[in-house]
């Protein structure tokens, strides 16, 4: 065994093409990664194609047939409509409601994380690069905020905006407000990581050289520092996405998220809650199940991504 010839001197000079690299290699070898990525991809596709895939358009409350309310799965309605997963108390088709609800969840989740990342990165860059008072203020705010759980922050922000504007305005702006409220609870992680990386990069020779030759600050930040930041940010984002999706669902369930007229997985569960004792389990459990599948898929993929990118980040 010890006589195997692996000449140490013959190390390859160029890294292999990316599709043969460690990352992809690890991906195809890990069943967890493949399954979770597939699930997430499929759900994403479903959400994007919602108007084409869903049997009924549930965004318009007027179209629902109240007569067909609370029908169990695989039923046929009064006028011959097929409801493969049953209907809710308003007569909306569960399958369609779930697909549109999935769409909302993903929209809010991705939007919130995107916003949080953008703000967090910007604040982290500013904090790390300029230091001094700016740094102190931002980091204090981060410390204070990170001791509060996301749900509470999102709840309070949503609550405050609700008291600031009247009902109809608030309903119309529900989605952006929700995205902002959830983003507000997640920016801290990005800011901290980015700030740390900026502090490291700031002292490097190439940055000092750029500053001496008069390159503008913004250019330095974007051209040199930002690319290094994207890896860790991606990992944090994937892990946060599941939490953001669950936060939206929870807020909708509590009645302070998406208004009940628009489809959302959380509000579907809420509606179904009242009918558990009557035995209409599908109204709550099916959207709940979909939510679990989505969150598990994103979570598992995020975990795998974090482990896969780690040794490379260390180098």
């Amino acid at each position, binding site marked *: 065994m010890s006589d195997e010839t692996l000449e140490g001197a013959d190390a390859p000079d160029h890294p292999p093409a990316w599709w043969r690299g460690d990352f992809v290699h690890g991906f195809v070898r890990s069943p967890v990664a493949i399954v979770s990525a597939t699930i997430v991809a499929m759900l994403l596709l479903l959400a994007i194609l919602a108007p084409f895939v869903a049997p009924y358009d549930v965004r318009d409350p007027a179209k629902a047939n109240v007569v067909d309310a609370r029908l169990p799965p695989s039923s046929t309605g009064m006028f011959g409509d097929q409801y493969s997963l049953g209907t809710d108390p308003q007569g909306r088709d569960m399958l369609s409601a779930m697909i549109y609800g999935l769409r909302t969840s993903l929209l809010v989740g991705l939007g919130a994380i995107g916003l949080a990342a953008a703000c967090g990165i910007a604040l982290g860059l500013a904090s790390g690069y300029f230091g001094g008072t700016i740094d102190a203020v931002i980091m204090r705010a981060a410390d204070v905020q990170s001791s509060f759980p996301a749900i509470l922050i999102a709840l309070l922000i949503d609550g405050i905006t609700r008291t600031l504007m009247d009902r109809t305005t608030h309903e119309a702006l529900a989605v952006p407000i929700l995205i902002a409220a959830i983003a507000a609870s997640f920016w801290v992680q990005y800011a901290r990581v980015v700030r740390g990386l900026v502090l490291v990069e700031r002292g490097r020779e190439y940055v000092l050289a750029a500053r001496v030759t008069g390159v503008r600050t913004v250019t330095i930040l974007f051209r040199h520092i930002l690319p290094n930041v994207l890896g860790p940010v991606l990992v944090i984002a994937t892990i946060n996405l599941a939490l953001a999706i669950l936060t939206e669902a929870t807020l909708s369930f509590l009645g302070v998220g998406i208004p009940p007229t628009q489809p959302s997985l*959380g509000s579907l*569960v809420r509606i179904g809650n009242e009918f558990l004792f009557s035995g209409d389990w599908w109204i709550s459990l099916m959207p709940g199940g979909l939510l679990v599948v989505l969150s598990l898929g994103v979570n598992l993929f995020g975990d795998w991504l974090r482990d896969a990118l780690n040794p490379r980040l260390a180098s």
Partner: protein
Amino acid sequence: MGFMIGRLGQTLIVLLVAALVSFMLFRYVGDPVNNMVGQAASLADREAMRTQLGLNDPVAVQFARFVGDVLRGDLGMSYRFGQPISDLLLQRLPATLELSLLSILLAAGLGVPLGVWTALHPRSRSAKLLMLASLAGVALPTFLIGIVLILVFSVWLGWLPSFGRGEVVSFGAWTTGLLTASGLKALVLPSVTLGLFQMTLIMRLVRAEMQEVLRSDFIRFARARGLKRATVNYDHGLRNTLVPVITIVGLQFGNVFAFSVIVETVFQWPGLGLLVIQAIQFADVPLLAAYIVLVALCFAIINLIVDILYAVIDPRVGAAQLARGGAA
């Protein structure tokens, strides 16, 4: 000592900021005068009312008055309930507190031993199973867990109630459900729901920390000195693990506060969480403002206690070092 003063200072700043937010909300959102005099009053009457309420005084004065009121326990009147808010809060506090404490006890009581066990036997089958199950705790939203538990234990099996506190016994201002059978039964599902997520969190934390500690040099040195396995794992290993864990569990108490909002909604538990949901839904501004101050206060106190605890337990940070005056 400097450490203490710094922490207290930070706490005060947080409280002031929360008070400010709350005050802004209270003063500028909705019109307190409108709510008091109704639509028909004339402009002159309103002006008189405003001056009488002190609403025409400079902002700083109003803020000072607000803070003074809060410190005296006067949090104003709830729009929706028509009662003094401080009364409302005190009424609902025992319910939330009992629920929170019970669920933390459950979470830590199960989470810590399980975490230790999976750290000591990382490659055993049950450890892998537990880690997989803990994933469920992270991926399942709390409200769904509650609903599934209701479905199984209330609807299908009929063993436990699905809403309310059951019969409660009063001790002056405090009401407890621990002394009646129905009260205890009512506590089971909500505290399990609330505690499950925390438990998986604690278990994973303890496991990660302990594995980290077990890899450290002093553990290796302890084994090299021939100390007994139990001594190495528990006396040295567990003690060092628990130091950061205890502080995080303390912070978890704050998390429980937030999640109690969800659990109280699912189980219609008459606590503070349900109160704040109602406040938001009915735009009950004074109540919401008071809740913000209360939350900030609770978190600040919890954080302070945790920091003090950490300083006491870890000799590197603690008063012991301060007393001895540093390295020799």
